[in-house]
């Protein structure tokens, strides 16, 4: 047998590789056989194709959006008039907890990661994600966590402690039953899922960019994805640790959050918001990535001051970690703490403002076309700026002390989260729908849905500012008549019904377009980035040949032909790795084949996590099947890989 070093330098043998002699239909046939997902149900479970996983993420997140939206409507019906008895106080607690938890943990972050998982490899010109099986595991774990929460809700053991589950309410003394445990364990599932996806995305972006796509030429969406994923990596361990501590306080009697035994309930708030505040930007920054791509395409020019936009993204990512205490102004802080966190909270509006000015300048300098995705961008400008301004207001401690836990805060964060993330997301769905499905969404229906969503949103959420200033607290299931709260609440409820109808219309548009929309072709918008260089929908292997990039707008600068490199194996899954900064071709590495082991591992982990709600020993005994599944996952499947040829 050859030694490893000899094998590594083995002489070339005749294996099929893409190139001038192997291109077109024959290459397509061979690459499809190599990269396709196996047929049947088991094949479906085994899929590691980032496009399938991204689609599953997005569809699942949209289902959770619909569920959380239905709860929002229930909340608004209850609050539509004073002294309403449609929903009781206890059920109302469950409903607002489920609404917030679902929106933050099961919709907002996963839908953004879903889009990132789908688009990133296409946008940077590679065949697959860095760790395709980890990526599959990420989705299954997310699905398991979401299912745990909603099955518990249906079984009437859903959490009722608010989406940030402050102890002592969520602790062993007041959080009776298993409701808070379900919440805490759902956090564990979703954080593992998000972290796994983030690691895959970072490695993909840093090591798999097309040759020539230096960091300075990377699409802004990829930059936003990189910064967001790094934020996930640095922030989510905090909440995973906190939820673990909460579970152990509840299950084995530790005292992390118990002041009677020298713990501190505020420790929870620090650990939670060290994650919770970056979380807002983890949701918002991908949306800025959508906007940068949409604005460039529909303004027919590249984004003005690209380096400044990148610096703004990075600055936002860093500053986001210095703000968490502004969620805790009313808990009592040293004076210097008030000053520092007020200053930091106001400072973070600067890089965001820079991005907005760059987008406006791009539209000013370009020839903007007001297609539906651009309408959502303009809706974003209007709504997000209002939310940003109320954010600057409540960064001031004296005002925050008055408005904390009122409907003013509810209005503020819906303006920044729906205006800042959901509007761009709806624009992004419209923009990339043709790439994913091969069909265009209806422009007419899209415009009707946009105006209904935009105006309905203002009607639903602007009056909440007034209700909050008038003193209406969050999380009350009803309010008395005669306090000036009737009209703002009624308007909000009407607005929420308009938004719900509009979202339904958006979904009807998606379904109708999927079934009978106009065929899109590869590049219906004449867009600048690489994902538009390949088929719509893309083939399993993404690109027949790996493209070469020499500008920030490769599709606009390509002319009639697209430069490519060649020489990757086509009978094995093989990726091209490039250097981190300059994207110089460096290594050819194999990519993971489809396998059911990530799914089986998720089952084992799910059993362990769910049982550990009831007994700490589940962590010990449950680790055994999870370890076996992991070993089976990692153990090489083929008897021995054939000697890998290289041409020296």
């Amino acid at each position, binding site marked *: *047998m050859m030694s*490893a*070093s000899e*094998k*590594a330098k083995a002489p*070339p043998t005749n294996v099929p*590789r893409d*190139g001038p002699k192997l291109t077109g239909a024959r290459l397509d046939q061979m690459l499809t056989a190599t990269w396709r997902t196996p047929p049947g149900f088991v094949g479906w479970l085994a899929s590691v194709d980032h496009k399938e996983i991204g689609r599953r993420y997005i569809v699942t997140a949209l289902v959770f959006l619909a569920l959380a939206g239905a709860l929002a409507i229930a909340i608004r019906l209850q609050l539509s008039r004073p002294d309403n008895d449609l929903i009781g106080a206890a059920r109302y607690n469950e409903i607002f907890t489920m609404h917030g938890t679902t929106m933050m943990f099961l919709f907002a972050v996963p839908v953004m990661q879903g889009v990132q998982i789908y688009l990133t490899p296409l946008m940077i010109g590679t065949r697959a994600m*860095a*760790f395709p099986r*980890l990526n599959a595991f990420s989705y299954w774990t997310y699905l398991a966590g979401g299912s745990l929460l909603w099955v518990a809700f249906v079984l009437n053991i859903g959490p009722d402690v608010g989406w940030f589950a402050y102890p002592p309410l969520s602790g062993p003394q007041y959080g009776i039953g298993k409701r808070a445990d379900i919440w805490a364990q759902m956090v564990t599932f979703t954080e593992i899922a998000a972290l796994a996806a983030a*690691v895959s995305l970072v*490695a993909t972006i840093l090591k798999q960019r097309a040759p020539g796509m230096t960091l300075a030429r990377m699409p802004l969406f990829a930059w936003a994805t990189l910064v967001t994923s790094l934020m996930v*990596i640095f922030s*989510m*361990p*905090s909440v*995973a*640790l906190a939820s673990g501590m909460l579970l*152990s306080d509840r299950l*084995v*009697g*530790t*005292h*992390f959050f118990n002041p009677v*035994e*020298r*713990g*501190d309930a505020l420790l929870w708030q*620090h*650990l939670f918001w060290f994650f919770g505040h970056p979380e807002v930007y983890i949701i918002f920054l991908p949306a800025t990535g959508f906007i940068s791509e949409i604005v460039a395409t529909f303004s027919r020019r590249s984004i003005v001051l690209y380096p400044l936009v990148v610096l703004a993204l990075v600055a936002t990512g860093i500053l986001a970690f210095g703000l968490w205490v502004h969620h805790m102004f009313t808990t009592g802080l040293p004076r210097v703490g008030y000053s520092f966190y007020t200053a930091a909270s106001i400072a973070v509006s600067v890089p965001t403002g820079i991005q907005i000015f760059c987008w406006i300048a791009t539209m000013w300098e370009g020839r903007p076309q007001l297609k539906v995705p651009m309408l959502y961008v303009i809706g974003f400008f209007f709504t997000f700026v209002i939310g940003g301004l109320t954010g600057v207001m409540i960064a001031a401690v004296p005002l925050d002390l008055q408005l904390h836990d009122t409907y003013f805060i509810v209005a503020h964060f819906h303006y920044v989260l729906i205006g800042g993330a959901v509007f761009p997301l709806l624009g992004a769905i419209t923009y990339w729908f043709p790439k994913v499905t091969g069909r265009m969404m209806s422009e007419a229906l899209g415009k009707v849905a946009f105006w209904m969503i935009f105006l309905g949103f203002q009607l639903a959420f602007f009056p909440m500012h007034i209700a909050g200033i008038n003193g209406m607290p969050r999380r009350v299931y009803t309010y008395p008549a005669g306090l000036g709260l009737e009209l703002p609440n009624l308007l909000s409820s009407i607005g929420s019904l308009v938004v719900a109808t509009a979202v339904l219309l958006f979904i009807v548009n998606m379904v109708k377009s999927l079934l009978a929309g106009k065929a899109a072709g590869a590049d219906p918008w004449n867009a600048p980035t690489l994902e538009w*260089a390949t*088929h719509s929908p893309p083939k399993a292997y993404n690109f*027949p040949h*790996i493209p070469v990039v020499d500008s920030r707008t490769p599709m606009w600068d390509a002319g*009639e*032909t*697209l*430069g*490519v*490199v*060649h*020489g*990757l194996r086509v009978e094995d899954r093989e*990726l*091209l*790795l490039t250097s981190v900064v300059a994207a110089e*071709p*460096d*290594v*050819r*590495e194999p990519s993971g084949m489809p396998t059911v082991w990530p799914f089986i591992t998720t089952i084992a982990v799910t059993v362990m996590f769910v049982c550990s709600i009831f007994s700490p020993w589940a962590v010990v005994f449950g680790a055994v099947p999870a370890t076996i599944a992991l*070993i089976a996952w*990692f*153990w*090489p499947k083929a008897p021995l890989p054939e000697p*890998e040829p*290289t*041409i*020296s």
Partner: protein
Amino acid sequence: MSMKPSFTRDIAHLPTHAFSHRALTWWGLLGFMIIEGVAFAMAIAAYFFLMSHEQEWAPRPTLPPDLLAGTLFTIVILLSEIPNAMIKKATESYDVEGVRKLLPWMVGIGVLLFVIRAFEFNSLNVLWYENAYGSIIWALLFLHTAHLATDWGDTVVLWRLMKTPHGHEPRRLVDTDENALYWRFVWLSWLPIYALIYWVPRFFR
């Protein structure tokens, strides 16, 4: 592809594996080390947050942990870097036989460390449910033990795998190389935790 390709460069000559930052898995490992490092950092922050509420640390009448087991653990885990570094060197010079000889040593050292760790749990002089000090001390030791178990499990799997013909596959040498890197993270992360569990409760009484 919708556009006609123009072939610019042949990449068939590129190697099919690489060590360190040129390998994809190195970046994945780095990501997970940062995640776990942040979790440790937050647990350490929680430690100081709880400590800031106390007049004394460890709070009387609790005694600080006994030093013997923890110090012995520290010495052994520091010494384990010697075979670990030898494994790393062997992988990077494609010395499969060397790797096969050295991996069982790391498995054995892991077993020894588990035994000492059990004594450590027994020498903390506090239980996790007595007070918040006990909770955070146990949490730090539990978190580190989880890392010990993870790397030990990976080392056992690699030990068995490298004995098979797969051991000659260069990518498996890269895996072993990265497992050695992770072991460095395990012992490096132990050093601050050792100080926090064993020495800080002595200095602040």
